[in-house]
């Protein structure tokens, strides 16, 4: 099968550049998720892989072949669109068979491949229906089936689940995961703005922002060792708390000063950063309530959101522009205005330099 290799890929519309030179290697058989806020260029990048968007600069390889000038149908890809993009006037069968018919494949082959795909996706009973007689989830399965029938080297998904309701989204997500398992050789590239999809599906996640790659790595690595503030705050919900701090001591371990309090972090820092301003980050779920004012941060309870399984508490902290969020397990009670002291394990703390780069990734 085939991987995808991008060398300094660029895209601009007229004079506005939207992709600023991306280098990325996607290995054969890998499930890679592009994630990032809306408008950051995920779709554009995916569509350049598909050949639906011309490439302004750089080289794109699928397998061994440079595909910059190859039309979509000859790239060995299949694409699943957010809106399903089913042909409304064709039956499910014809939708899935369209590509092979265009390629003038023998009838028997078409029949066989369509039936196989329908079987995998449990669409066999619906083969003669028109798309409008299907539910949203079934339509999405037809779109996936259409991709399977093409037997592509690379599957491309552009936010395939965002038109489904919450319950169906979970179910279809699991189906896609199973599909990937049953086709270990196929490379899959999946675009989403939903980090849960990204975390659950991906072998590796590519975090994009404003046309640049912020970090590439397995989901847990991104969660535990975000390369920069953007990734740190993008992955995880609620987002990581970030506060201003100053480095007190550098070395194998770093001591920082947060207001009056001090903390030792198992993060190395270079000597020239002594006294430097840094961003101190800690995830809401890594904070705990410390007994009587022994914590790292003190805050005044402002809003309490009880979700049952967890309780999110928003605290106002002196000199901090944003409230601090704490995510505590189960149901917990607080009074508005109450002062709460928060603590965290040192290995759950993150440090970022002035430019937002993690000290772990310098």
């Amino acid at each position, binding site marked *: 099968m085939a991987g995808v290799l991008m060398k300094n890929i660029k895209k601009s*519309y*007229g004079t506005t550049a939207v992709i600023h030179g991306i280098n990325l290697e996607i290995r054969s058989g890998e499930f890679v998720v592009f994630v990032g806020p809306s408008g950051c260029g995920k779709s554009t990048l995916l569509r350049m892989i598909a*050949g*639906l*968007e*011309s490439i*302004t600069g750089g080289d794109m390889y699928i397998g061994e072949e440079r595909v*910059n*000038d*190859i*039309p*979509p*149908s*000859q790239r060995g890809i299949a694409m699943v669109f957010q809106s399903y993009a089913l042909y409304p006037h064709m039956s499910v069968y014809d939708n899935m068979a369209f590509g092979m018919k265009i390629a003038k494949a023998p009838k028997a082959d078409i029949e066989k491949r369509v039936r196989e795909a329908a079987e995998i996706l449990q669409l066999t009973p619906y083969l003669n229906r028109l798309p409008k007689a299907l539910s949203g989830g079934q339509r999405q399965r037809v779109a996936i089936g259409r991709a399977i029938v093409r037997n592509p080297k690379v599957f491309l998904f552009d936010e395939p689940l965002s038109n489904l309701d919450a319950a169906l989204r979970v179910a279809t997500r699991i189906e896609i995961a199973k599909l990937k398992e049953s086709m270990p050789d196929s490379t899959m590239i999946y675009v989403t703005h939903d980090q849960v999809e990204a975390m659950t599906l991906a072998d590796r996640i590519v975090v994009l922002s404003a046309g640049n790659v912020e970090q590439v790595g397995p989901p847990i690595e991104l969660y535990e060792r975000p390369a920069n503030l953007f990734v740190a705050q993008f992955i995880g919900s609620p987002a990581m708390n970030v506060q201003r701090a100053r480095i007190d001591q550098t070395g194998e371990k770093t001591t920082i000063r947060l207001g009056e309090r001090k903390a030792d972090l198992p993060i190395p820092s270079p000597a020239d950063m002594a006294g430097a301003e840094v961003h101190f980050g800690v995830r809401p779920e890594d904070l705990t309530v410390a007994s009587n004012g022994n914590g790292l941060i003190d805050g005044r309870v402002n809003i309490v959101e009880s979700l049952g399984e967890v309780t999110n508490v928003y605290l106002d902290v002196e000199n901090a522009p944003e409230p601090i969020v704490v995510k505590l397990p189960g149901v917990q009670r607080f009074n508005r205005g109450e002062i709460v002291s928060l603590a965290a394990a040192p290995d759950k703390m993150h440090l970022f330099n002035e430019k937002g780069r993690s000290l772990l990734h310098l």
Partner: protein
Amino acid sequence: MAVTHATTGPAANGTGFASFLTTIPVTLAVMAIGLAVSIAGAVAVYALLAFILPDSRLLGAIVVMFLGVAACFGYFWSSNKLLDTFYPAAGANIAINLTKANAIRPWLFLGPALIVLGIYLVYPVINSIVLSFYGPTGENWVGLYNYQWLAGDGAFRESVRNNILWLLVVPAAATFFGLVAAALTDRISWGNLAKSLIFMPMAISFIGASVIWKFIYDYRPEGAEQIGLLNAIVTLLGGSPQAWITVPFWNNFFLMVVLIWIQTGFAMVILSAALRGIPEETIEAAVIDGASPFQIFYKIKVPQIWGTIAVVWTTITILVLKVFDIVLAMTNGQWGTQVLANYMFDWMFRGLDFGRASTIALVIMIMVVPIMIWNIREARKDMR
């Protein structure tokens, strides 16, 4: 097969104006061959059929229709095929081939339309301008003579005056009645039936409508039984019957009624859709604020559909400038009812003076130009 797509600019794959120029010969060649093949095919089949089939014109029309469609399709098919053979989407030159084929293909698709539009609309506009400087037969140059003549011509001035009257009255009245009909029919259970019936005159030809209304205006001398509805009503109310379409000045309005009657349905349908497109919340908010139905209509609904009202208005305005059938059929411009379109027709067919007729046509064209510009501006805003 395309790598570049709808939204990607031609600049994206490096084709500038210069490389566009280089594709012209191939484009023309492919188009020409495609056209030649398909027309020749159609003519051959036609000749064969004409040889076999008995002479029946309706049958002939149907055959020609099918052949025309087949020829069109043949052209598109063969020219595309030709292009794909010329620049195959495979092999070593695939990138160059695709770029070239993609630069040429749109012109193959557009070709027939451009040719027909060129011959039937663009050329005539230019030619009319030229002809307006020529004499009756279009052969001898007369300079500005036709314009001078026009400036001093009484019938022309009458036509302009009447056209202005039509322009003031018809669009306003049709839009007004259309708005009222739209607002009222939307509130009743049998509204759709009512709409259909008010909309129906749209399907009737101007000449048919003229017969219908001439019958209504029919006049019998006083004392005789009136068979025209209008005079019957007038006599019933104690008035004396009139030959309505000969009453100076006012007869213009009796002709306008015909067009208003036809166009109200059009205005109604479009305005009704616009009214239904108004967000229900704005109306509900007004209801809660205690506005009466009339206030809601004039203060909440109408302001929100100004854009559509303007579109309806201009559409009818253009139609008014072009209408001649009604005047031709009802009065043929007598009794002070001449309008530009009919006057032009008059000079073309009775006067046999192509120079003067072209000059009058140009005047109509000039009156349309502001609307044309406005339309283009609106459409361009839309198409972004």
